[in-house]
């Protein structure tokens, strides 16, 4: 057992972090958010690096690596709060790879792998990232029972301006006859989407904690660093606690996606229940630990809070995932395999 990235995985993650540290600085995040536009060059660079296709099998033109590698990239994406259709497109790609027919895979995966096409994974009637611009949409019925594949022009997408201007969102609906049915398991498609969203949340939590630590070490009040007050220390300790909990659960889910499919559904609910809660609470605590400054537009911490709110809700939040975990636990005790 080795609960840790391999050297190769670590290297991918480290390279991503470095790249994003220069290409998605908080200044750039801010200017993109304030102008409500992505930096198209950033997306191009990510595509050149093969990120959209990292977990798509080589057979369809992808990198042939796993969900673990993809989760690592999305964690770094969350850390840098990068504005791009990466989460949406990779969630879509994973869903098609998971639940699509052979023909659907052949049609879309090569284009998604290069980033030539963007996509999204949406639950009908709910907010989905980068939906309005998506070339292809995997649409899950609102009772989570079935999935349809739609070319962008087959769906009806209403763009929604949300509280998170670092990303674009839309609500997808479609006529019952539109697009094609997907033959595979929508549950697994949703699970991968949920766990890579959790990975993004882990990055958001980690960055919120790092930014907060930097602030409280520096900022003085009552003649001493704010970070020397026990109340602030214990708040930061809990931020770490929640971040690491989300991380453990998310890494496990990513590993299960690649290597232990029987535990994917459970792992994904574990990850999303934990990361959605952590995302909302850690970013809220970060604002609080900043004091009044944390409530101002010019501090950067609010971007993380806002993205965390959207990510927490995407593909279901803490409460429904907890209920799924309870249902799985009940099933286990009644029929021990």
């Amino acid at each position, binding site marked *: 057992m080795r609960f840790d990235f391999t050297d190769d995985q670590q290297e991918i993650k480290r390279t991503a972090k470095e790249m994003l540290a220069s290409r998605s600085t908080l200044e750039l995040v801010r200017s993109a958010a304030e102008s409500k536009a992505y930096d198209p060059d950033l997306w191009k660079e990510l595509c050149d690096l093969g990120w959209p296709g990292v977990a798509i099998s080589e057979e369809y033109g992808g990198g042939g690596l796993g969900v673990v590698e993809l989760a690592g990239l999305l964690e770094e994406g969350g850390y840098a709060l990068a504005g791009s259709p990466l989460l949406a497109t990779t969630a879509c790609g994973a869903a098609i790879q998971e639940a699509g027919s052979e023909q659907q895979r052949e049609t879309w995966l090569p284009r998604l792998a290069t980033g030539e096409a963007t996509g999204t994974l949406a639950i009908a009637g709910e907010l989905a990232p980068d939906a309005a611009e998506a070339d292809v949409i995997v649409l899950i019925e609102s009772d989570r029972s079935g999935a349809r594949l739609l070319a962008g022009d087959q769906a009806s997408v209403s763009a929604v301006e949300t509280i998170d201007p670092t990303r674009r969102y839309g609500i997808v609906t479609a006529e019952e006859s539109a697009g094609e049915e997907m033959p595979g398991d929508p549950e697994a498609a949703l699970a991968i989407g949920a766990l890579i969203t959790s990975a993004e949340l882990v990055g958001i939590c980690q960055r919120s904690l790092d930014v907060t630590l930097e602030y409280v070490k520096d900022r003085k*009040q009552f003649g001493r660093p704010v970070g020397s*007050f026990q109340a602030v220390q214990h708040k930061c300790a809990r931020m770490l606690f929640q971040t690491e909990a989300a991380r453990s659960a998310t890494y496990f889910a990513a590993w299960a996606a690649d290597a232990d499919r029987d535990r994917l559904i459970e792992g994904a609910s574990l990850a999303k229940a934990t990361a959605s809660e952590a995302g909302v609470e850690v970013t*809220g605590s970060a*604002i609080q630990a900043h004091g*009044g400054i944390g*409530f101002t537009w010019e501090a950067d911490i609010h971007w993380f809070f806002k993205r965390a709110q959207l990510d927490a809700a995407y593909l279901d939040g803490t409460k429904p995932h907890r209920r799924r975990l309870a249902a799985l636990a009940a099933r286990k005790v009644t029929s021990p395999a």
Partner: protein
Amino acid sequence: MDLTFSAEENEFRDELRQWLAENHPGDEPRGDDDTTFEFRKDWQRSLYDGGWAAVQWPQEYGGRDATLMQSAIFFEEVGRTRAPLPANVLGLLLAGPTIMAWGTDEQKERYLTPILSADEIWCQGFSEPEAGSDLASVKTMAKRDGDDWVVTGQKVWTSGAQYAKWCLLVARTDPEAPKHKGLSYFLLDMDQPGVQVRPLVQITGEAEFNELFIEEARIPHENMLGGEGDGWNVALTTLMNERSGLGFFLQIRLRQLLDQLVEEAVRNGKIKDPVIAEAIGEIEARTEVTRLTAYRGLSTIEKYGQPGPEGSLTKWLWSETNQMLVQLAADVVGPEALSADSKWAYELLRARGNTLEGGTTEILKNIIAERVLGLPRK
């Protein structure tokens, strides 16, 4: 124990309701700050004309000698009817009472009426970027120069500064004295080149607050409130008046928001989900407890002449509950709750300020621990 209102209290409420029914200005205009401000100014003028601008002020200064309970009723009714707050809320709640307590006859004569009529708007210059909530660390300096004081420094979290004619300013007049002894309290004229106002945009995108850059601004000595070195004590008077009454406005707003959430949950059927119902029940309990605790606080003040622990507790309860409520809205309302232009999204963001403004929750807990529970300082 008697939780009904007295005949006088009911009479007061009835008269106010009647007046509000006839004079309610309708919904506040949205979007443009200046338009909103003018709207609130007109509204205060209307309150003033009706004799409702500052019910808690003594009659001799244009108030109604209202009891604490009546003042609470006033804010509840304003909240309940969704009437706006008056434009000069800091003048009415802070500047007026502080000037009444510490001012000379000339000062009372000069300042009180224009506060009431909203002819002169006030803001509060206590907080500083470095000092935060720690008044004893104020760095803004005032130096005597003939009949004037010359002031230089920076203030922050000054709401309404862009509209204010006057600022309640705490500045250091004796840098040699121990930290809280070297302070004095001034009435600063904002209309001078030495005072620059920069709006502080908050995470909602609005700017309720400002930064104040003060560069050799001049204040005539006659505009000092209290004596030289009395700044700390005068400031305490101001702080004691903070939130008095306003708490009732906030708790009613919390109740209204909760009622809207329950309506929405009933409408879309989410109330039938027991997990949602339990979460709503929790917030229902906390909202009601906030209201009850606020009233208990008034009874304590009426009986003992000073606030009990309830004041800090109400603020804490209210802020925590409001944050829980707006967070739950995302589960109840659905995507709409996160849409930039929805009320729920605005409330979600605005609520983050609740545990920071008017004393952070951490400071409130310190105060409760040390002043209410008598726990030792380090």
